[in-house]
């Protein structure tokens, strides 16, 4: 079953630039997909169509069989999104309040909200930080808080936009571990990055974008060979003819 179906998607920005050009893409439920490409290749524009933050100029985006355009709220509930700048995602004055933000918007009752927040904080290991001010958390903890905020909405798909940007090594490991846990729990994972080194070992599909188009799509090992011609650095291991290893080993 495909959780995401994109047909002939085109997106033109208000200044006339073409952001996406005839994108056709189907993603199976439970997949772990990495979308890579150089800056301005259209990666972020693409994922913002999945929950209706951007709407297509032409074409159609469906999440779990329903057009995003027709039911924005459903799409936003089903597709959680973690942005590159975790600080800009924080809206609450405490960790608890921040995670409760999404369920409050869904107009759930107080008991349901409490239940979801506790579960989400538990899942990312921030249960003891519930009363902490979010801005005092470390970089890795802030990303985990952003993930908890998404989990509380109970999404099926989680899209991560540059989840490892400006994180130190322990921070990268924390976030990577969290992403893998979510994948094991049955979520469909999309990771947008231009830095394949940290995540490629876990992906079952790699998509390369350039100038708003998908130019490579397949099993990582099969297409990683020539990706440097598209402005994406291949992992060190593949340069040495070795298997790409996880950062968690």
């Amino acid at each position, binding site marked *: 079953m495909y959780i995401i179906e994109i047909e002939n998607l085109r997106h033109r920005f208000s200044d006339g630039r073409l952001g996406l050009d005839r994108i056709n893409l189907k993603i199976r439920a439970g997949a772990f997909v990495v979308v890579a490409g150089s800056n301005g290749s259209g990666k972020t524009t693409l994922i913002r169509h999945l929950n209706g933050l951007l709407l297509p100029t032409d074409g159609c985006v469906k999440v779990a069989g329903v057009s995003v355009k027709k039911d924005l709220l459903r799409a936003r509930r089903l597709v959680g999104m973690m942005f590159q700048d975790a*600080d*800009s995602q924080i809206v609450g004055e405490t960790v608890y309040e921040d995670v409760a933000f999404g*369920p409050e*918007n869904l107009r759930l*009752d107080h008991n349901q909200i409490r239940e979801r927040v506790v579960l989400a904080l538990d899942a990312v290991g921030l249960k003891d930080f519930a009363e902490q001010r979010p801005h005092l958390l470390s970089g890795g903890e802030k990303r985990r808080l952003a993930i908890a905020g998404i989990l509380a909405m109970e999404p099926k798909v989680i899209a991560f936009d540059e989840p490892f940007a400006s994180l130190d090594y322990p921070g990268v490991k924390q976030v990577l571990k969290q992403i893998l846990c979510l994948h094991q729990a049955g979520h469909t994972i999309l990771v947008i990055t231009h830095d394949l080194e940290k995540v490629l070992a876990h992906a079952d599909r790699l998509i390369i974008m350039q100038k708003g188009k998908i130019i490579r799509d397949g099993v990582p090992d099969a297409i990683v060979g020539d990706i440097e011609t598209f402005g994406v650095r291949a992992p060190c291991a593949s340069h040495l003819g070795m298997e790409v290893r996880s950062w968690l080993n």
Partner: protein
Amino acid sequence: MAELTTFSFQPGTSLLHKLDVRFKLIFLILISLISLGGGFQGLGILTGLVTALIIHSRLPLKSGFKELRFFLVFLLLILGARMLTTPGAALIEIKSIVITRPGLMSGVLICWRLVIIALSGFLFVFTTPSSEIKAAVEWFLKPAAFIPGKRIAVMMGLIARFVPVILNQAKETAEAQRARCVENRKNPLYRLIRLGIPLIRRLFEQADKLIVAMEARCYSENRTDPALSATRIDWIALLIFILICGWILSN
């Protein structure tokens, strides 16, 4: 960012943290009204009350002094203006400058009132999450059908969320410019323009990011607000506070 907001909400277990926000808002209004009309004796009682609450709720006054420096300068200006412009018996006379006794008294009184009101406000903000303040404002505006309470509450929530962002951006931009020796330029207008334009541009960018993040989490005006429930402690606190107010007014 956190260091810029010493007087923002801090979770805690003090009595003020536990009280219903609507009652705290009523206390704040009453303290402000009584301060404005009260004399030295009344202000003395209110000062004692506010000081006890500051100690009890552990408001970080010491670290907050840096943030209060502009407020203290403002108070000094008020005091100076009152001392020099109020007619009456001269207390100190240096050439043509005359400081009068009534001027000094009224200056001290006004500054004292403002300090009490400001500290009460800080106590309120320090012990109340902005989401609760928002919910209380909405609750108080509900009877006025012609006022869009929900929208006002949402705007308040967004402002509260954005103030630390503005302060943080201003600090970062100012530091980046100091690193490039902006202090060598003595023209304050030049420096203001150089700081203001990039700051505003970055704030709009930040606002855009915040909006997108909020939209991604289904933000709408019709959302579940924090549950407001008055307990017996709230009513007892209100009764005690009204008695104190009555005592101050009767004196």
